[in-house]
């Protein structure tokens, strides 16, 4: 198995034209060709929000490996932030400040300002589209507290999260899908994008098409487009204990990486404090927003010691570390003292059943614990990728610190704008997908209105054809499941809440070994129809690539900031590291030493109003 660029596989004969001429819908040598002004990859919140803008204004297609309503946006629970001030005084400037501080000052402040300002319309857009938000007694959208969101620059928690019970993400996904149905958006469901085609135009690489694999038939499709938007979500499956879906394998981020385009701030991964112990299934921070309390074995509310002002509503990175520390110091609960407790018992059945019904059910179903009467065992779970494909505030993808790739956009969890810096605040991601999904859709349309199609080379499909054939024909001895399990376990052990150079070196070694074994992987399903065996193998390839970038970037950042905590460098070091990491694939990914094929660079942080300060809560 190789992950190299497609060029090698070219079968072009001398007489063939370099570029393909085709009609939309043509089938040439078994490959399907499509042409659309805008192609969106991904139909989660970000992809569908973009589609709602682009669909009515340009010929748009959405390619998605999952049926849209299966996307993991639907798993989001707690809420979406916007300073509506429906229940108490609030404004977008406070929200901007909280976002910057929450991200440990690695946030691009121009982007954070847009996020907080446009939040208000983003919420009204969703409500007007039909989203059934919970209501105040006056019939307005209700708001609840969430970690790190405060009034007047940290004075006290503020009610900023708009919500629909504890299924806010579900309601966002459904509402966006309903509006896509209304607008007749053209979906290609269960199509896996596996490559983006870059064509040299005047010496520059320009995106010309997306290549996708159709799950139902095993056929390959080339989608030519003027504008391409990536909205493929996160990659939590590099870890074992995660709140992420099985399908969150970072395909889109991996595709961009393999093209030699940079990835930003990959070392910053968020571990959410309250995953069901041992399972990783999320219990929303909204529970603590409603008053739930974290306790150690002796029943102590330990967050009072670490964050005296906002206690259990401190940002996630801080709480996760405190939890791990409590356990490490022997104060964990349970027979093995290996978790802490989320105590919701004082909230009462009424609040749990009406405002937090889903998580109440998760605890009952999966742990057999009833939160109404007993505290729930929890531990941090890999939750959110702060890093990803670097973009500017127009959602345009960057090929270095400031050069835009014309016609290429990214939004949502796969992108890094960067509004989350080194640690995302709860409720800011549902916001991000709406604000920057909408922007991506609009800017993609604007570009497509005047741009020409970039020609598609004759061998556009050959990389994907090679990838698929190689896996189908392989008679190797390694199993995907075994490799993936080892990767995930080692990432949990060595690159989780606390990291050291030693632990990161260890998992680097593991990844290198696994890469070698991956070359010898075989799949058992050799068929064409619904071959999920094949796709899991391809997804594992992306996971290995991304885990390596995460670890390599993490080793290089010798400080502790936000979601990246180095035990060997326990403090924030603004003098050396107040900058974004930019990682590039510059060599053969199979070369022994990651430094042979990954190059790192830095990108300045955009600072407008807020100078870095110590982060106390």
């Amino acid at each position, binding site marked *: 198995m190789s992950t190299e660029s497609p060029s090698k596989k070219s079968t072009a004969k001398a007489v063939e034209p370099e570029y393909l001429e085709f009609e939309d819908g043509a089938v040439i040598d078994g490959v399907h060709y499509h042409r659309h002004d805008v192609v969106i990859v991904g139909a989660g919140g970000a992809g569908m929000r973009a589609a709602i803008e682009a669909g009515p204004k340009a010929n748009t297609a959405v390619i998605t490996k999952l049926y849209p309503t299966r996307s993991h946006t639907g798993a989001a629970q707690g809420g979406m932030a916007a300073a509506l001030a429906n229940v108490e005084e609030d404004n977008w400037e406070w929200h901007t400040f909280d976002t910057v501080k929450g991200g440990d000052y690695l946030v691009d402040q121009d982007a954070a300002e847009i996020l907080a300002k446009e939040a208000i319309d983003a919420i009204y857009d969703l409500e007007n589209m039909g989203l*059934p938000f919970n209501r105040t007694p006056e019939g307005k959208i209700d708001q609840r507290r969430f970690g790190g969101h405060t009034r007047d620059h940290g004075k006290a928690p503020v009610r900023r999260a708009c919500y*629909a019970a504890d299924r806010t993400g579900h309601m966002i996904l459904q509402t966006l899908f309903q509006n896509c149905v209304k607008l007749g958006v053209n979906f290609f469901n269960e199509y896996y994008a596996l490559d983006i085609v870059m064509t040299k135009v005047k010496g520059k690489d320009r995106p010309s098409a997306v290549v996708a694999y159709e799950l139902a038939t095993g056929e390959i499709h080339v989608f030519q487009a003027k504008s391409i938007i990536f909205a493929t979500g996160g990659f939590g499956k590099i870890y074992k204990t995660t709140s992420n879906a099985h399908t969150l394998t970072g395909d889109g981020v991996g595709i961009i990486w393999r093209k030699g385009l940079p990835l930003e701030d990959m070392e910053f991964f968020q571990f959410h404090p309250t995953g069901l112990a*041992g399972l990783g299934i999320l219990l929303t921070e909204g529970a603590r927003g409603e008053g739930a309390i974290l306790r150690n074995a002796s029943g102590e509310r330990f967050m009072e010691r670490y964050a005296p002002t906002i206690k259990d509503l401190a940002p996630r990175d801080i709480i996760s570390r405190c939890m791990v520390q409590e356990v490490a110091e022997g104060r964990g609960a*349970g027979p093995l003292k290996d978790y802490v*407790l989320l105590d919701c018992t004082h909230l009462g059945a009424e609040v749990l059943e009406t405002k937090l019904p889903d998580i109440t059910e998760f605890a009952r*179903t999966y742990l057999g614990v009833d939160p109404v009467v007993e505290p729930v065992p929890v531990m941090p779970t890999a939750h959110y990728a702060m890093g990803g494909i670097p973009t500017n505030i127009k959602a345009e993808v960057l090929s270095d610190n400031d050069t835009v790739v014309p016609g290429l956009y990214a939004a949502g969890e796969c992108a890094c704008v960067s509004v989350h810096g080194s640690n995302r605040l709860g409720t800011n991601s549902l916001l991000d997908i709406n604000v920057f999904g909408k922007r991506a859709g609009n800017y993609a349309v604007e570009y497509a209105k005047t741009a020409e199609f970039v020609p598609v080379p004759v061998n556009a499909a050959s990389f994907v054809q090679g990838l698929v054939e190689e896996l189908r024909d392989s008679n190797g001895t390694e199993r995907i499941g075994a490799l993936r399990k080892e990767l995930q376990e080692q990432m949990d052990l060595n690159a989780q809440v606390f990291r050291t150079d030693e632990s990161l070196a260890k998992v680097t070694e593991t990844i290198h070994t696994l890469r070698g074994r991956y070359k010898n992987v075989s799949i058992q399903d050799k068929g064409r129809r619904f071959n999920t065996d094949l796709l899991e193998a391809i997804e594992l390839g992306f996971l290995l690539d991304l885990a390596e970038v995460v670890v390599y970037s993490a080793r290089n950042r010798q400080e502790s900031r936000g979601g990246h905590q180095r035990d060997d460098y326990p403090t924030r070091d603004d003098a050396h590291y107040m900058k974004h990491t930019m990682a590039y694939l510059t060599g053969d990914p199979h070369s022994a030493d990651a430094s042979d094929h990954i190059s790192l660079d830095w990108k300045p942080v955009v600072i407008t109003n807020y100078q870095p300060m110590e982060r106390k809560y």
Partner: protein
Amino acid sequence: MSDVAVARDSSSAMPEASIEPFTVTLIIRRFDPEVDAEPHWQDFDVKMYATDRVLDALHQVKWEQDGTLSFRRSCAHGVCGSDAMRINGRNRLACKTLIKDLDITKPIYIEAIKGLPLEKDLIVDMEPFFESYRAIQPFLIASDKPEKERIQSVAQRAVFDDTTKCILCAACTSSCPVFWTDGQYFGPAAIVNAHRFIFDSRDEGSQVRLDILNDKEGVWRCRTTFNCTEACPRGIEVTKAISDVKAAILRGNPGLPPSDLTLTPVSA
């Protein structure tokens, strides 16, 4: 704190009943359209803990024994609607069915949901299901363009709360005997999603939807067998939603109460 509380991971405590894994036999209805003329049943033995999900058992088969076994799944905790299947003759989500909730002295029978075209193993063609969903106009129809949010009282919001939970898994529709024999019937899920809008005080399109569901393939085909309500993994009272819609059709309108937010008395 009960010690029932923890999952199976190496480092965690185990509930009494599941300290040791035990062998469970799965009997799965297989079908590969490229090879098989007819579906057939195949046995697999897997090692499971009591607190494992049926989805974990399927993964064990796929990842350790037979990679050709095909099924859909994503979230693994009952929120995405990918993995509705027939488990011991009942429609359930594989990710929400724990081994301990089944009779493990007997094999576990697993097959695809019924009434939709079988594609491969546990995968069916969902398109007919989504066609019915689209047909009921599942989106807010409202002509006003408010500056901020539309106002809706807590009570008005509560009327349709139950049906907003639907994850379009098709467990209900594919458990319905009427749907099995008449694929044209809209089916419970489409009616649930129509209900979600018909009873939303902000919506202006209920008449259209009530007309659509008054059709011969509409709500009147429902025989109130309650299979759908039993099947729904989200605990939606599906049969009640269908009855609400029937009543609204007979009444000629959804019969929503006037807003309880009006400042003037509702009646003299």
